């Protein structure tokens, strides 16, 4: 057919005309590069602003001092109580969120029938949980953990003084755990799904039960992915203030918290206090910046620890298994 041979010629002709393609590829390469630069630029501005304004007020005394009642004086105040508070609420949250999230993910990937409506509802619920504003989690924590569970515990134990029925590290951590649950579930599910089906089959064909297969073959391999979920959860939770507002954070405490039922001071919340409650904004500004810097460094340190542990686990898996 003459038509087909004609079109072949024009197709090959088009192949050699490169100017137009070149312009578009140049344009889009430039565009993606610019977008990346913009993000890096914003990040650099934020970090530089904080570091440059914060490092002068940062000192060993600042991070190792428990603040006095009047914590607006740059010469005497410190953030030790806030470092302890933020660290403990993040760690306690991790202890709760990892097992619950991992077990839920195991149920969803290994046990739940794939196309059943129940599974779909659960998965939808998990996704919706991720979209709930964090202040709503705070209200939920107040209503459910403190006013319901805490109050019931106090009644059951016959406490005359409210022990569980009040904001504390425990309730704030549980509220944060509920908030970060979707992150852990999704990350774990992804790492479970990435494990080849052949390995599960091999284990089952050797006469392993489903539970033995999960415990001995699937979970060890999914561990790095699960830890990624943990890292994301820690990053998300460390800077959150809204969920702990009603559930645990204190404006001021004279002593460091000593038990899970104590309230705590928090770096993120303290940033808010310093920037809104100060009698002298100009005087407080250096410690405000320094507190933000400490929060950033703390988040970074927590992440770095988790990343190092994960790298260790990966190396072990690769070398030995």
């Amino acid at each position: 057919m003459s038509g087909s041979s004609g079109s072949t010629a024009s197709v090959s002709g088009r192949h050699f005309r490169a100017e137009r393609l070149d312009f578009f590829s140049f344009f889009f390469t430039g565009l993606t590069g610019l977008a990346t630069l913009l993000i890096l630029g914003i990040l650099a501005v934020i970090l530089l602003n904080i570091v440059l304004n914060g490092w002068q007020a940062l000192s060993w005394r600042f991070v190792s001092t428990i603040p006095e009642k009047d914590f607006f004086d740059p010469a005497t105040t410190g953030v030790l109580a806030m470092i302890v508070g933020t660290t403990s609420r993040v760690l306690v949250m991790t202890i709760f969120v990892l097992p619950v999230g991992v077990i839920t993910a195991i149920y969803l990937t290994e046990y739940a029938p794939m196309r059943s409506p129940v599974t779909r509802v659960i998965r939808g619920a998990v996704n919706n949980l991720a979209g709930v504003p964090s202040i709503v989690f705070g209200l939920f924590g107040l209503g459910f953990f403190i006013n319901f569970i805490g109050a019931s515990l106090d009644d059951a134990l016959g406490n005359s003084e409210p022990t569980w029925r009040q904001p504390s590290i425990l309730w704030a951590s549980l509220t944060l755990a509920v908030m970060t649950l979707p992150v852990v579930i999704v990350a774990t599910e992804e790492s479970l799904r990435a494990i080849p089906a052949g390995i599960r089959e091999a284990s089952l064909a050797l006469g392993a039960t489903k539970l033995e297969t999960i415990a001995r073959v699937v979970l060890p391999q999914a561990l790095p992915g699960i830890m990624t979920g943990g890292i994301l959860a820690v990053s998300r939770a460390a800077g959150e203030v809204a969920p702990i507002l009603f559930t645990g954070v204190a404006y001021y405490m004279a002593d460091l918290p000593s038990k899970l039922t104590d309230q705590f001071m928090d770096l993120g919340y303290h940033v808010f206090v310093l920037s809104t409650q100060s009698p002298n904004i100009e005087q407080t500004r250096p410690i405000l910046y320094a507190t933000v810097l400490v929060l950033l460094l703390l988040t970074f340190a927590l992440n770095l620890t988790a990343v190092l542990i994960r790298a260790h686990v990966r190396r072990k898996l690769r070398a030995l298994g």
Partner: protein
Amino acid sequence: MHQEPSKSVEIALATEVSAIPPESPKMIDVECLSLWYGQTQALKDITLRICQRMVTAFIGPSGCGKSTLLRCFNRMNDLIEGVRVGGRITIGGHDINAPDVDVIELRKRIGMVFQKSNPFPKSVYDNVAYGPRLLGVRAKRELDVVVEDSLRRAALWEEVRDRLRESALGLSGGQQQRLCIARAIAVKPEIILMDEPASALDPIATSRIEDLILELKRDFTIVIVTHNMQQAARISDHTGFFYLGELIEFGSTRQIFTNPKKKRTEDYVTGRFG
């Protein structure tokens, strides 16, 4: 003794069983087996016998049901949603689809080697010791013996004896497949099912696997699915030819390849289709 099946089966058996030496005791007995994936029927009224300490090969074009049948023997099809089975499979006289059968026990007695080698991301040692550990073996000395013995029988010991603690994923493809065979025989099964065990290997690795199968035949009953007709001809005692879920012909390998009774079998083994 084995003449109870229904009339239609008896007629089917009349030609097929004649090709099997009468002295070899049967291991697996398949009677009128049908299998459906949802609405699609994957196996149609299959009847055959697999003899002890022999190699039985299933051949046929892709999608003919040979792998599906293989996975019926250790009930791996249970893992797939919506599978229904009709008919009977008896292994050592027990109906394996009976409600009182413990699938876990069944699978411990039947080893399986898959098309794609699938060692666990663990050390060579831990791969082989996986099955025995499931059986409750904890003593290190006992495990050492089983691991060495299984690796020797899988013709892998000399190659890996110095790297037992290294990851199995560092082995070559052929070594990985032999490791999977070692892992399967470590639990001392009676039957080994092989689903195209050499299809992803180069010719040298393939011939090592074939030698190994002939060696293992002394102790185990082996059922192998293969795409490679020369392979079936080289290593098997009996061959079944499957087409579109039906067992077209079953008999001694020599008879299937030199004197097929059905036109379709002849066309397939002579390479006219498939």
